[in-house]
């Protein structure tokens, strides 16, 4: 866990070091190396698998005939800020920040999971816990993933708002783990009495880290929401967007793309209407 944290911090540091240099305008007519396409990742999926990331990056770079660089940050907000400020072109973010900043972001495509571009939020408790409903978690400790996560924060906020309360009042103490995987961990180790987690991540973890998911129990599954989408920031050019979308959607047609998809446990990527995220937008409105 420490290693993962350090690794991510290192990556973030590396990205931060490169960012100012590469964002400088090319001056003096000198031929500068072409700026790579920067793709920001958030823990909407299990983003700590270096092998998977390198294979995906290699596939994208080859398919785009352009250098692709993955950028990972501590929080969703940092990636979102980078997107909005043009430090990165693309980002795989949650539906919640997408609907919050819809005007500045463009929807590229949405992953398809178990045949549909949808997923659910899970409420989980430790396997030995007696709680079976959200109502039984009052006064307990609760783990959220990220304040900009739909499944890991917004949905629970929405449920509580419907009950006329909020997390501060309802739970004894709540905290963010900044990743879905860590929510599962915090609940499995009983640091938290319950947690909200991305259903896709939890299901993926049943294969990758079954000992963690086995230590938790799902007590509630939300209605289906639009799967965390891949979006483009204002800096991405139309041509780049088109190429990027094309390459992602074409992944199932390529053996290496299929391999990466299998590792991601996704079916593929598809163009989806913006309306897919209406339910999230409604919840965001409700808790505002």
């Amino acid at each position, binding site marked *: *866990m*420490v290693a993962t*944290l350090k690794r991510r911090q290192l990556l973030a540091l590396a990205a931060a070091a490169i960012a100012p240099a590469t964002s400088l305008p090319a001056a003096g007519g000198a031929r500068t190396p072409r700026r790579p396409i920067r793709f920001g990742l958030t823990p909407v999926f299990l983003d700590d698998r270096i092998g998977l990331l390198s294979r995906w990056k290699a596939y994208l770079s080859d398919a785009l005939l352009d250098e692709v660089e993955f950028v990972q940050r501590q929080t969703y907000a940092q990636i979102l800020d980078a997107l909005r400020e043009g430090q990165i072109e693309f980002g795989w973010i949650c539906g919640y920040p997408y609907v919050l900043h819809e005007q500045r972001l463009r929807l590229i495509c949405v992953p398809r999971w178990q045949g549909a571009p949808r997923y659910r939020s899970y409420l989980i408790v430790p396997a030995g816990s007696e709680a079976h409903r959200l109502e039984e978690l009052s006064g307990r*400790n609760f*783990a959220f993933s990220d304040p900009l996560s739909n499944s890991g924060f917004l949905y629970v906020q929405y449920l509580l708002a419907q009950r006329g309360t909020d997390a501060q009042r309802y739970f*004894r*103490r709540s*905290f*963010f*783990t*900044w990743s879905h995987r*860590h929510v599962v961990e*915090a609940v499995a*180790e*009983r*640091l*938290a*009495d319950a947690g909200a987690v991305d259903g896709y991540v939890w299901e993926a973890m049943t294969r990758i880290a079954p000992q963690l998911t086995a230590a938790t129990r799902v007590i509630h599954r939300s209605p289906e929401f639009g799967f965390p989408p891949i979006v483009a920031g204002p800096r991405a050019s139309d041509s780049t967007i088109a190429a990027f979308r094309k390459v992602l959607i074409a992944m199932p047609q390529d053996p290496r793309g299929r391999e990466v998809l299998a590792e991601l446990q996704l079916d593929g990527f598809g163009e989806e209407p913006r309306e897919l995220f209406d339910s999230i937008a409604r919840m965001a409105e409700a808790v505002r």
Partner: protein
Amino acid sequence: MIRQLASYRLRVPIALTLVTLLSGVTVAVTTFVLVDRHVEASAIRQTERLARTLAGSLAQPVLRNDVWQAYQMVRAPTQPRDGEGGTSMRIVVVGADDRVFVSPEPQSFPIGMHVSALPPRLAQAGSSLMAGSQGAIDPAARPDEEADSWVVGAPIRTDADTIIGMVVVEQQRAIPRAQARQIVGQLAGLGAGAIALIGIAGWVAGRRMTAPLEQLREAMHDAPETRVPPAVDEVARRHDEVGELARAYRTMIEELQAKREMERRMLQAERMASIGRLAAGIAHEVNNPLGGMLNAIENRRLRGGVDEATNRTLGLLERGIEQVHTTVGALLNEARREVHDLQADDLQDLFLLVQPQAEQVGCSLEWSIEAPRGMRLPAVGVRQVILNLTLNAIAAAGDAGSVRLASAQDADGWAVRVSNTGRTLSQQQLEELLGNAGATSSSGRTGLGLWITGRLLHLAGGSLRVEAPGGGSTFATTIVATMREQRG
């Protein structure tokens, strides 16, 4: 017991054993205490360092209320390594609200638990410093001799030096007290066994070292003063100090023996001298009248008119007086002038002298002595010896007893066997009588006669011995006087 303890054969082994025990125990205790103290001190320092480090890095997470990051920080040092099993460390981070901010053991110390619900020692470290001033608060190790752990509290400070929480680290002793006691018990058991073995070895070594001394002591203790016992000789063969001691002792005993022998001889010589003086006085007094008697007999012969019977009587008297004269002369230690060889007449005279004695006592006398052939023996001395022995034998046989005299001659010399019934005389008694002039025999008779006999025999080159009573012999005692020819 005290006397036994004073003995070297106990003191040396006991001293060796005690020294072994003492050094063993001292080394063991010193090692244990040093190791224990050193290990504990360094472990406490490490715990303090950990608490301070954690407190420093936890400032940001606590300030930002980032439970997860704080959890990851405190979880790392408490995670069991490589299947070592349980961890020996407990960490609790207490927030400014006196509630648990995070702990790697959320099941035991869940988030939000009030500090008062913590185990007392953790609660004390977690809250007391918080309650204190914000200034000079330093983490302090609180080792508890009885507890199996020590607790270190370190305040979490912001950059503005405001205390926003406490890190409490409880470190288990590497060896819990109970286990330590068990280990000490086992060590003591094993050590006692080992020390007992060493002690036994020490005892044995000590005994071995003192054994020659003890051997010497026993030899000296049991030894007669007259001779050096073989045990001492054995010890004296050693090459060490004890051997030297034994040799010195042997030399001393030998010198003592020589001195004793000299004293004995001096005493005898003195006694002989006094007897000699007495005898010389008596001899002088006796010889004067005897001279007169001999003169009277001579005068009577010169006057003539002596008939045959008177002449024989006079001859008998003359030889008897001569005999007395010569015998007394022997006491004067003078060289005898008148020496004639033993003749059958001399032996016949003897029979005539002792026959009346035997008749008077009522004892039968068997006389079968033949004069020696081809041998020259001093008549006076031999006569006196036989006379004395016979008179003694008659006295010993007493009324209705019998005495027998027989002679035998061989290459060794001429022997006269004097046997008598009655009391038995052993060789030892004979020697006592011969050696101690004036000693009183059990019959009350002084042994001067036998002593004189001994001396005369000695002058005649003879010897005296008691013949063991033979089987079927009716005689109780047989004394054999053997006389040899004196040459030169």
